């Protein structure tokens, strides 16, 4: 007569278990050992099994219990998911050298020339971008300067320097054709004052912008 077993079935992925009854022959009973990570979960309800079979079943249970658990490791399921990786367009600009102060004095003047000019190349511009074909523009905050302030990018390590230009409130190209890279250049400011313009002071705030060309 077949023995009746209650079997607990577990899903390793969901960790959900369920009990169910089923009948098994004595041979099946010997092998119907549903081991969950090395633990026997057979629970006999009634038996008409000969004692020898019971013992054999017990021995087999102990035998399997002694085996390493990993030998019975099973893949109960698999899954996958997608990882989205995004690198946004990033552009950085930095000016080194601090504030620039021009002071036009008699020492900067040639007698007979109305134009008095002074240059300063103490500042450097650093940039980095991961976007293609960028440019850097420059503009001043001063709407009506007394004197002319010119700017030129000298020796850029990347891109092409635009021609020297007088700063105004309109952004003007300083560097062109900057690709995905980092680079630096020297900022050459030239202050130009005419003697005929008299004396005075201009305070500029220069804004550099890196943007798509």
């Amino acid at each position: 007569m077949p023995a009746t077993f209650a079997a607990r079935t577990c899903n390793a992925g969901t960790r959900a278990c369920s009990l169910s009854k089923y009948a098994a022959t004595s041979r099946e009973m010997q092998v119907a050992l549903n081991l969950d990570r090395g633990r026997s979960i057979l629970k006999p309800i009634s038996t008409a099994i000969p004692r020898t079979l019971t013992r054999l079943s017990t021995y087999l249970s102990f035998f399997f219990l002694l085996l390493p658990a990993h030998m019975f490791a099973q893949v109960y399921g698999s899954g996958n998911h997608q990882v989205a990786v995004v690198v946004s367009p990033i552009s950085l600009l930095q000016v080194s050298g601090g504030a620039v102060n021009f002071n036009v004095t008699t020492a900067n003047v040639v007698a007979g020339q109305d134009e008095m000019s002074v240059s300063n190349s103490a500042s450097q511009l650093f940039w980095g971008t991961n976007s293609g074909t960028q440019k850097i523009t420059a503009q001043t905050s001063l709407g009506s300067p007394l004197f002319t302030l010119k700017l030129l990018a000298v020796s850029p390590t990347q891109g092409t320097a635009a021609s020297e230009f007088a700063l105004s409130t309109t952004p003007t190209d300083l560097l062109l054709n900057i690709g995905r890279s980092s680079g630096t250049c020297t900022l050459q400011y030239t202050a130009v004052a005419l003697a005929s313009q008299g004396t005075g002071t201009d305070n500029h705030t220069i804004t550099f912008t890196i943007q798509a060309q």
Partner: protein
Amino acid sequence: MKRTLFTLALVAAFGLITESAFAQATATQSVTLAVNAVYKISTSGNPGALTISNGSAGSDNLTAVSDNSTTYSITQNFGNTVKITVHMDAALTAGYTLQMNLASTQGTSLGNVDISNATSGSAVDVVTAIARGADAGQTIGYTFSALASAGTLSSTTKTVTLTLTN
């Protein structure tokens, strides 16, 4: 379906705006430009020797000699009341006269000005009312005259100083 498409469009638009916002970067720097009062004057060199070696019979005034070989240049941004004064390191002996005449486009030339007795304490004006700006390569004229009654004068060098002042 329409709602899904609308949502996707919104997400795409937001993505574009975000990219655009990060695509730009700025940096600033302060630049101060100060122009002080400037006075500058220079001369092109020294005139040739002014040597009197002729006269007119019956006249005490010997024949004067001139030199217009030198020039001066100026630059000033102070104002429109600037002038040029001249003085020598030492006055000439009586009977000898040294005149200067400075051309000017920015100011008013006073023509031939006697500088024979102009020393550091008594400089004389030669150009006045000079406007702001520059005046380059203007001629400096020297005229040296002497009286026969004053006798001869061994070679004497005078230092003439031109001063741009207000």
